[in-house]
Structures are given as C-alpha cells and as structure tokens.
C-alpha cells in the first residue's frame, strides 16, 4: 500500500514538474521575473512573479492563495505590499 501511494505521488510530482516547465518556458518569453520563491525541497517552491508590460503596467502574482486575506491581518505582508504599491503608484523605477 505504501509503495503504491509513493508511486502515485512520484508520478503526480513528475507530471506537475513537466507541466510547470512547459508553462514557465512559455511565460519566460514575456519578460517575467521571479521575485521571492518558496523554499520547498528540490526547487519545488511556489513563485511570486513580476510581469512588467510594455505599456507601463505590471502584474504581481502573489504565488499564494491567502496573500490578499493576509493584507488585513499580517503586519509584514501589509507593510511590504503598501511599499510596493506606493512605489508603483508614484512612478518608481519600474512604472
């Protein structure tokens, strides 16, 4: 039973890695930049991504489900996000 579960997990993991590589290969062409990255083993951590657009906008991909909810209750997330958007809205280096 344990062997079966491990085999399944390994198969799913490999499939996920293949899908991730395909996705990343496609997106790299859009001038993406990975900012923070999760410290999971084997480089498997989630990524926060900055996607800067030609017309001056940008997309910040939080890489975590609860980032927005944390804005209201987590001082570190809230203050860092405020700095990011303050910099952005005032036309800092990137925008």
């Amino acid at each position: 039973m344990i062997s079966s579960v491990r085999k399944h997990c390994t198969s799913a993991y490999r499939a996920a890695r293949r899908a991730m590589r395909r996705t990343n290969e496609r997106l790299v062409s859009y001038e993406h930049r990975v900012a923070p990255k999760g410290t999971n083993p084997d480089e498997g951590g989630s990524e926060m991504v900055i996607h800067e657009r030609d017309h001056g906008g940008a997309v910040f991909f939080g890489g975590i489900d609860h980032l927005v909810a944390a804005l209201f209750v987590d001082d570190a997330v809230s203050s860092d996000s405020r700095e990011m958007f303050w910099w952005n809205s005032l036309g800092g280096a990137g925008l």
Partner: protein
Amino acid sequence: MTSTAEGHLHDGLLPLDSYSVLIIAVHPDVLEPRDVPRCQAMGVRARRPADVSGREWTQCEVVFAADGSMRCLSHLHSLHGEMGGKSGDGSLEYESRMHRTFESEASLLGVVCSETGIMTAAPFRVIDASHWVFAGTGLNNN
C-alpha cells in the same frame, strides 16, 4: 482603497478607470468572460495600472445569474493534478479551467498558476532584492 465583490465588477458598478491598482483575491476564482476584456482594457489604458493577485484568481469561468447567484464551470478531469486537464481527444493540455472553457488567464495577466509548490507551505526567500518591487520594504536576499 475600496473593497468590493466580483459581482460589482461584473455589473459595471466598479469604475476601474478610477484606480491604478487592482487587487484580486482568490476562490472561487471567478471571472465571467465578458469581464475579461474590461480588465484587459484597464491594463492597456490606465496610466499606471498594476494588478496584484493571490494565486489562480481567474482559474475558473463563472456565470452570474439574474437572481444574484453564481455558477462555477469548475468541472475538471484531472488525472494527475493538472490545473486544466486535457481535451477530449487528449491532444491539448489546458493551463487552467478558464482555459478549458474560455481562454487562458495568461492572455489577461501574462501569468498563469502552475502546480509548482501547490498545496504545500514553506517560507518564501527573496531572490533579487535589487528589483524595484522591493524598494522600501527592507527585504534582502538573505
């Protein structure tokens, strides 16, 4: 800062042109197709637009009903945890549920949720603290 619901975006009650930053949370991962062009328009026309999202915020197409209810087109035939599954004949692998029923959210955001690290928890580490996005945060590469 204004907190609103996705229904306000759909109904046109949220004046996107009045904002420079759009923060979109996650689950139930909603956008109705007709709302996508409006968000795209914000990204193109606004003076300094920036979006921030959690993760997979447009993963699933939804339909808003006249009675105020919402239906998620969320069925997914995923054999190994794929985000969007495959087409009926297996020739196409979708990037997400939105991709399966409408269009990949990458066409709007330029990014799409992948399986990397999904359903896990680990601290994040800054890779390049010199990037402008970290200005004023005090974060560094260590």
